[in-house]
């Protein structure tokens, strides 16, 4: 993975000192809360319902075991012993004191980590495919491009006060595991007929209150123009994105209002101008970064057979492992969704244990997924049973990846000041209700947001749940048919909303219908797409 050089380290250290100075000026009253707010937001510090929340960046979701261990230690020292992995492949701590943050950031900087641009109206942490560098289906590792973009976007002087936040995802596989087209910019690294790599740009996707699937605006940007093209996309947005209404300020609204063709025309004109400005790093820089992502020293001839005689292990194997590009290896996903647990939460001890297991079994590397789970990307098949045994002893072996128990949920009313309804207790109820049947139901992605801001990606769930406020009481709307994969689609609302128990019953009626009507091999989403909304509506509302 990427190792900082002295330049990268100095940038992060400098930011710690800058923020220390800003906190000092806030505490001594030089800065008003209004003035301080964008500064702390640029550093991932939110004021929540009960305390400050700090979001730490995990660039493109990749981290080392040393970094993971520090995340566990921080949970103990500065939080209440927990960390919360997020849909942005980051980690959040919910109980942070303002005066502690400079020291906390100092600890992070020692292991090449930071909280730079994890919130605020700027370019956020770049996300990517959690199986990058390990997946059998990728054309190349997307992370060097994500790292190039990370450096370009860090402290970019022109783009610190954009109309709204800006999220970029980079993938390099036809199988989209990063919800690429639901980002402000989604980049897919592709290969043309001549065998050259380039970048396909999808711009103007997003969730929130007006979900949109990003249109393709350029199918092949040469790699030695990647930064210049990105800069053109951002400049057009910074200049013309709406600033009169924060709910219409994301780039998706600009692209939608002026049309993808006109947006593209503006970008191409800006791009033509910027090409002469010398802003593109040389390809040698991309080559330097790529060296950091060279293949691991995979054992040649590693045995491919796994003893499946233990049925619990075999179930986990089928559910939570994926094909690796190297023979004799597997990709392991550790579910942070135990039955009745808080999705994405891990205790300090669990975080440290996962760090140790990555060191022992996965070339020192871990990934955070946007579905709030942890990946050990490079595990020898011969080690899978030992790994599973260790996970099982720590409550980390739940075999429910991509099932109805693998719920994405935003923090909701338990923490978030914008929420209309609680997300976490509902997720816990659903996971308990369906625990015995999740394997029978199979792949079913269920996502919960506590309000229309859609942090829980409810539009993109096979089943989505949206918390709304109905005359002062919590109410939940049900959506069906969303997908964030390569077949991206947006869910549709079934009809009137439900209370907390009502929505769990409604989901059960929908899954019962699926179980009776599914054709061979059909997932819930496939059956819904074949049958359409009507029969589900009938089943749900009777």
């Amino acid at each position, binding site marked *: 993975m990427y190792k900082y050089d002295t*330049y990268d380290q100095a940038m992060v250290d400098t930011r710690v*000192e800058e923020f220390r100075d800003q906190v000092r000026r806030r505490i001594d009253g030089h800065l008003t809360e209004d003035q301080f707010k964008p500064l702390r937001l640029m550093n991932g510090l939110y004021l929540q319902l009960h305390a400050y929340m700090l979001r730490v960046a995990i660039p493109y979701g990749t981290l080392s075991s040393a970094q993971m261990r520090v995340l566990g230690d921080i949970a103990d020292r500065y939080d209440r012993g927990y960390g919360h992995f997020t849909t942005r492949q980051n980690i959040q701590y919910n109980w942070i004191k303002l005066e502690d943050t400079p020291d906390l950031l100092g600890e992070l900087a020692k292991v090449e980590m930071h909280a730079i641009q994890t919130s605020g109206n700027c370019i956020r942490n770049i996300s990517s495919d959690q199986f990058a560098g390990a997946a059998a289906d990728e054309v190349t590792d997307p992370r060097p491009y994500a790292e190039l973009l990370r450096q370009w976007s860090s402290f970019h002087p022109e783009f610190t006060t954009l109309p709204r936040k800006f999220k970029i995802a980079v993938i390099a596989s036809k199988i989209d595991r990063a919800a690429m087209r639901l980002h402000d910019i989604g980049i897919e690294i592709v290969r043309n007929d001549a065998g050259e790599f380039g970048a396909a740009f999808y711009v103007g996707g997003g969730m929130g209150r007006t979900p949109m699937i990003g249109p393709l605006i350029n199918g092949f940007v040469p790699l030695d123009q990647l930064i210049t093209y990105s800069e053109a996309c951002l400049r057009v947005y910074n200049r013309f994105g709406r600033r009169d209404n924060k709910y219409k300020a994301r780039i998706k609204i600009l692209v939608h209002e002026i049309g993808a063709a006109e947006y593209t025309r503006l970008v191409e004109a800006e791009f033509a101008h910027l090409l002469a400005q*010398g*802003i593109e790093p*040389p390809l040698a*820089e991309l080559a330097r970064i790529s060296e950091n992502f060279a293949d691991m020293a995979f054992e040649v001839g590693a045995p491919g057979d796994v003893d499946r005689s233990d049925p619990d292990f075999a179930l986990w194997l089928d559910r939570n492992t994926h094909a690796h590009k190297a023979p004799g290896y597997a990709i392991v996903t550790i579910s942070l969704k135990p039955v009745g647990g808080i999705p994405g939460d891990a205790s300090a001890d669990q975080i440290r244990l996962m760090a140790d297991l990555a060191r022992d079994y996965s070339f020192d590397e871990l990934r955070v997924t946007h579905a709030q789970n942890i990946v050990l990307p490079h595990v020898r098949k011969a080690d899978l049973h030992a790994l599973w045994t260790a996970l099982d002893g720590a409550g980390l072996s739940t075999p429910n990846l991509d099932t109805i128990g693998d719920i994405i949920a935003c923090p909701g009313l338990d923490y978030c000041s914008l929420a209309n309804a609680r997300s976490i207790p509902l997720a816990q109820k659903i996971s308990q209700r369906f625990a015995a049947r999740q394997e029978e139901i199979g792949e079913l992605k269920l996502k919960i947001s506590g309000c229309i801001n859609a942090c829980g990606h409810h539009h993109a769930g096979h089943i989505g749940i949206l918390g709304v406020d109905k005359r002062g009481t919590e109410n939940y709307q049900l959506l069906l048919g969303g997908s964030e994969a390569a077949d991206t689609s947006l869910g549709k609302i079934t009809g009137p909303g439900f209370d907390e128990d009502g929505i769990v019953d409604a989901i059960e009626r929908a899954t019962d219908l699926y179980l009776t009507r599914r054709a061979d091999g059909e997932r819930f989403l496939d059956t819904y797409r074949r049958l359409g909304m009507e029969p589900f509506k009938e089943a749900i509302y009777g």
Partner: protein
Amino acid sequence: MVEPLRFRDDEAVADPAVTVDSFGDQTNAAAVRLEPGDDARDLLPCLGRLRLVEINFPGFGDGRGYSAARILREHGYTGELRAVGDVLVDQLAAMRRCGFDAFAPDIAFDPADAQAALARWADVYQTAADRRAPIWAKRHPGAVHG
């Protein structure tokens, strides 16, 4: 009004800055003020006679002026580029990078804070209007631009 903080050696322009609209009609005006919604590219035909461009920030959170500044510099404008309005000391370093070389904030900067802000960043990741060599250029001395 507070004396502007300037990073230029020439005499400050005394003329009042006119709006972009009236600038178009006044063939002798040398100072213009851009509002966030104005298009900086409208000034390109007359860059030669401009000696002062004020870019107004009615609220610090509206960042359109950063793009306007860079665009003017990228098209060869060398006169004074002054940030006016709700300009905060924590924006100083980024604004310098975008080509601003004068600052007339509504509330004067604390001089020590301003100095610290300007001295803070030893290196930068991007090419911008200040033409500082970015980190990638230092990593690859002699490499041609992509």
